[in-house]
């Protein structure tokens, strides 16, 4: 008994598995009923309704010209992790397990469009120092709260929250919760940006487990689509974007509401507009 005890004790201390953690592994198909017009066809120019954006972000978005996406350096950008889960492609989640401890040390997520490959470190490692590179998917660490996977991400490249010029700085931080209910996965994400958001932006995405394991490659090579002067960057000068009020006009929304801001998300705002 004296010999067995240390091994039992060691097993207790070393493995310490989180008993409630869920297996998120598999291929998940996005459920597009939520925010479908934005996620499928794409958002309209000038639609910032209900988003807690700063005046700085608004000016940046109003200056944005979709032609920027034809510039070769912009053509092969994947979605950053702050947006990728809104996309239409399947999501594959796989686990990396340490052979000795049988602990999940890393969780990979992969989304088809532009091959958004992401790693979520589960081994408690620290985040890199502030002068290390930022990436499209950022540096993510995860832990379990019950059977909910909680992920913290920083070291993100300057990205976006919507495909109509609503940008994020490289100081953005994202907290996510992956919640599995049988064959349904709820992904909650909370983005903070000290410069472009006045308060955390909270969104959810739904996925359903599928038996279709197809995940096509997505090669990308940039080409010159439009002949331009060297270094030309398409954009609208302040106050000159002709499309900025088209969303408000088309949907009979007051322009100031379409311009966004935290209060435009609240029911009280409609009453305020009526006054």
């Amino acid at each position: 008994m004296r010999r067995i005890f240390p091994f039992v004790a060691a097993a207790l201390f070393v493995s310490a598995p989180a008993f409630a953690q869920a297996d998120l592994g598999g291929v998940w198909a996005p459920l597009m009923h939520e925010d479908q017009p934005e996620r499928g066809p794409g958002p309209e120019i000038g639609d910032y309704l209900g988003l807690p954006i700063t005046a700085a972000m608004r000016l940046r978005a109003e200056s944005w010209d979709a032609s920027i996406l034809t510039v070769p350096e912009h053509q092969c950008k994947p979605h950053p992790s702050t947006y990728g889960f809104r996309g239409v492609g399947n999501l594959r989640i796989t686990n990396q397990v340490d052979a000795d401890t049988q602990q999940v040390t890393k969780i990979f997520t992969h989304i088809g469009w532009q091959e958004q490959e992401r790693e979520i470190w589960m081994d408690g490692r620290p985040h890199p120092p502030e002068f290390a590179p930022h990436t499209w998917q950022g540096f993510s660490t995860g832990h379990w709260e019950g059977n909910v996977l909680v992920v913290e991400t920083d070291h993100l490249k300057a990205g976006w929250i919507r495909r109509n010029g609503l940008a994020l700085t490289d100081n953005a931080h994202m907290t996510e919760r992956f919640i599995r209910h049988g064959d349904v996965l709820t992904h909650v994400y909370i983005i903070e940006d000290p410069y472009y958001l006045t308060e955390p932006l909270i969104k959810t995405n739904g996925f359903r487990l599928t038996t279709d394991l197809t995940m096509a490659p997505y090669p990308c090579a940039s080409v010159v689509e439009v002949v331009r002067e060297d270094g030309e960057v398409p954009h609208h000068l302040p106050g000159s974007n002709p499309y900025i009020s088209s969303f408000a006009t088309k949907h009979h929304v007051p322009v100031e509401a379409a311009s966004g801001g935290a209060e435009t998300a609240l029911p009280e705002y409609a009453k305020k507009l009526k006054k």
Partner: protein
Amino acid sequence: MKSRGRLQADRGNDDVNQTHTRKTLALGIVCTVAIALFMGTAGRAQQGGAAPAQGRQGGAAPAGRQGGAQQNFDNVEVRSLHVQGQVWMINAGFVNAAVQIGDEGVLVVDTLVEPLADKFLAEIKKLAGDKQIRYIINTHVHPDHTGGNEKIARAGKSIVGGNFAGQVGQQAANQAQIFAHENVQLRMSQPGPNEPMRPFAAWPTDTYIEAQKDLYFNGEGIELLHQPNSHTDGDTVVYFRKSDVVVTGDVYVNTTLPVINMQQGGNLNGIVKALNTIIKITIPKEKQEGGTYVIPGHGRLVDEADVVEYRDMTTIIRDRFQDAVKRGQTLDQVKAARLVRDYEGRYGATQGFWTTDAFVEAAYKSLSQPQAVTRSN
């Protein structure tokens, strides 16, 4: 597993002396004040000279600059990060340098401030062991990039022979060679008003006047590319061909709005041009990530996509200013229009060397005045 993930993971653990961000920011603030002291008079606030964005980092009081308080670099760490190939990024919180290490010895790009020279040398020793420092390249003249020239050069050795050894003597071998654009030497040896006089031993030993100077060291080609009238008139971008790493000096920083030192020949259009040059050199891996890495004069290690983000910003701002100048707007009108307000939170500052106001003034002037000041040509 994708290689970018490995890169990050490694950086999270192996290559870097881990320090908490908060601590580094605090050090950055200390250093900002210290650099302000080191770089001279209050007049420089209007002239440029890259420094951290104090307002954003917690509002370090610039009062020390006028008060003449003693600077203290005791708590500043000099850390290294292996970029790729033979190149390491050297980070002192508020400013960057680089080293290339190989069989033939050590090449240093920029030497930080003088008080950090010993720590810099200790870090080189840690990385390179007893290998000799053979070359130093200065990206530009400012003392936060050349302050350690004297000490670091003297810690190195050159290989001399032939006529040169006969004429100058073997003492010429007792220090590393310092390469820079000719205008760096002109500004060190004949400083303008408010510019510090630099000791002879800190001056470049080898200068170039052409658009590109080539070196070959440690088995790789190294391009020194002059960026005329950008941050100053003597900026060099250094490209390590085999390692695939670019060291930019202050023509690209990611801590502040572009720093235009007009009194030393800087110009906003020159910076835009330099940024486009960097983008031409860099080749990302698929999905616009990784590939060529870029070490900025100040701020974090980046790849092409980050430089593109900064180039886009700088170009958009330049176009706005150009439009205002074309429409005959005065500087006051341009200031009132707040043409950089979408970027000033991230890159601007309300105090320190390089405030948003200082940038607006320099950007306006550099687009409304026909020609920047240049020491040569």
